């Protein structure tokens, strides 16, 4: 590496080590920029694709109260996608490039959204577990080293807490209901538990990005640390519901002051990442269709704006 480049990188790392935030126009190593673009855009795509499994139940929500809550939650997720796309755009990529990468399957999004939402109880399990896991990650990211990303996370975290509470409340209601309703809640937990644990990504020993991301303080906790934190917080909540976590190896470890848990099925994880989950094709197709079918709206809005601008200019000329 040439000495000037090396000096710049050392200065950059010194700023990171001093816990300074990096802002869009600051010098940053190419790899830092690339890592951020990849991570922030994946995060944005996840928020947007994440609306699909829940959108599936809006028209079948069991009451108006549940329906407005679910709608408000889904609307928040659209907003989260927007905050994150905007943060990625400060790094010099365009919205069109980012969407293109999603639509061609080049960019990833969280694999959890490739699982189907089969019953109303899934709306409970998603809010409680999926948003719960996302919150663990996002709270950490409010302290990430890139300023625009950190600020987006602060907004998002403020909005997230109702998502998890509304999910848990759905399950609580089912668990206090008839036996069949409680069974429905148990079935949802059975299906969502392991995919939720996989949301934290591969185990630290297999994670290619973790070490460098920690050094750059993009991440502040490792995948395994966050996963453990999530399990420790969530198991007592399952107990309160009277539901059984589908892991025979799950056990409180007095010595570690943490729960021990069973081995995650990493073959399943990688299989879904590679595009072979139950809903990968369906999700992507839904996004592409929405984008293509909305093209005329985007064009019409531009044409209308242009027409109005021209009219205003003509009027100015007339007055003058």
């Amino acid at each position: 590496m040439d000495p000037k480049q090396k000096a710049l990188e050392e200065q950059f790392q010194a700023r990171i080590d001093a816990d300074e935030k990096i802002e869009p126009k600051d010098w940053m190593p190419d790899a830092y920029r690339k890592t951020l673009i990849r991570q922030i855009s994946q995060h944005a795509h996840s928020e947007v694709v994440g609306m699909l499994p829940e959108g599936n139940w809006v028209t079948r929500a069991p009451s108006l109260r549940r329906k407005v809550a679910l709608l408000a939650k889904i609307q928040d997720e659209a907003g989260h996608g927007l905050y994150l796309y905007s943060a990625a755009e400060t790094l010099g990529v365009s919205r069109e490039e980012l969407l293109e990468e999603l639509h061609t399957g080049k960019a990833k999004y969280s694999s959890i959204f490739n699982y189907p939402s089969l019953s109303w109880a899934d709306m409970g399990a998603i809010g409680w577990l999926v948003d719960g896991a996302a919150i663990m990650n996002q709270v950490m990211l409010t302290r990430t080293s890139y300023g625009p990303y950190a600020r987006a996370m602060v907004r998002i975290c403020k909005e997230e807490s109702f998502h998890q509470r509304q999910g848990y409340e759905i399950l609580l209601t089912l668990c206090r209901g008839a036996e069949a309703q409680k069974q429905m809640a148990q079935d949802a937990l059975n299906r969502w538990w392991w995919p939720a644990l996989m949301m934290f990504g591969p185990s630290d020993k297999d994670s290619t990005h973790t070490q460098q991301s920690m050094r750059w303080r993009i991440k502040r906790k490792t995948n395994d640390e966050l996963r453990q934190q999530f399990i420790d917080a969530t198991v007592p909540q399952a107990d309160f519901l009277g539901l059984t976590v589908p892991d025979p190896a799950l056990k409180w470890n007095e010595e570690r002051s943490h729960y021990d848990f069973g081995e995650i099925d990493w073959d399943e994880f990688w299989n879904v990442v590679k595009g072979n989950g139950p809903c990968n094709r369906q999700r992507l197709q839904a996004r592409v269709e929405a984008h293509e079918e909305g093209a005329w709206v985007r064009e019409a809005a531009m044409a209308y704006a242009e027409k109005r601008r021209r009219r205003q200019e003509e009027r100015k000329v007339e007055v003058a």
Partner: protein
Amino acid sequence: MTNKKDWPLWEVFIRSKNGLSHKHVGSLHAADAEMAIENARDVYTRRSEGVSIWVVESRYITASSPDQAESLFDPADDKVYRHPTFYNLPDEVKHI
């Protein structure tokens, strides 16, 4: 990429309540100013975070560059006499 079809980028500033200044909250794409305000309302004030919105197209903002930071801001660092604590007054003197 400035495709004619693509909506331009706008910066959004929100006054959270009267008496406070507008503060930058983020950005969004919109075809024109009116739509930018409507979108900003939907995205940034869903929980009564604002009483007033400013939007400005991002390309009209001129920003100082981080490379200028030293020449712009360092001169203020050695001017301690601009701060009240620079002046030594006896404790007996009150309300000053």
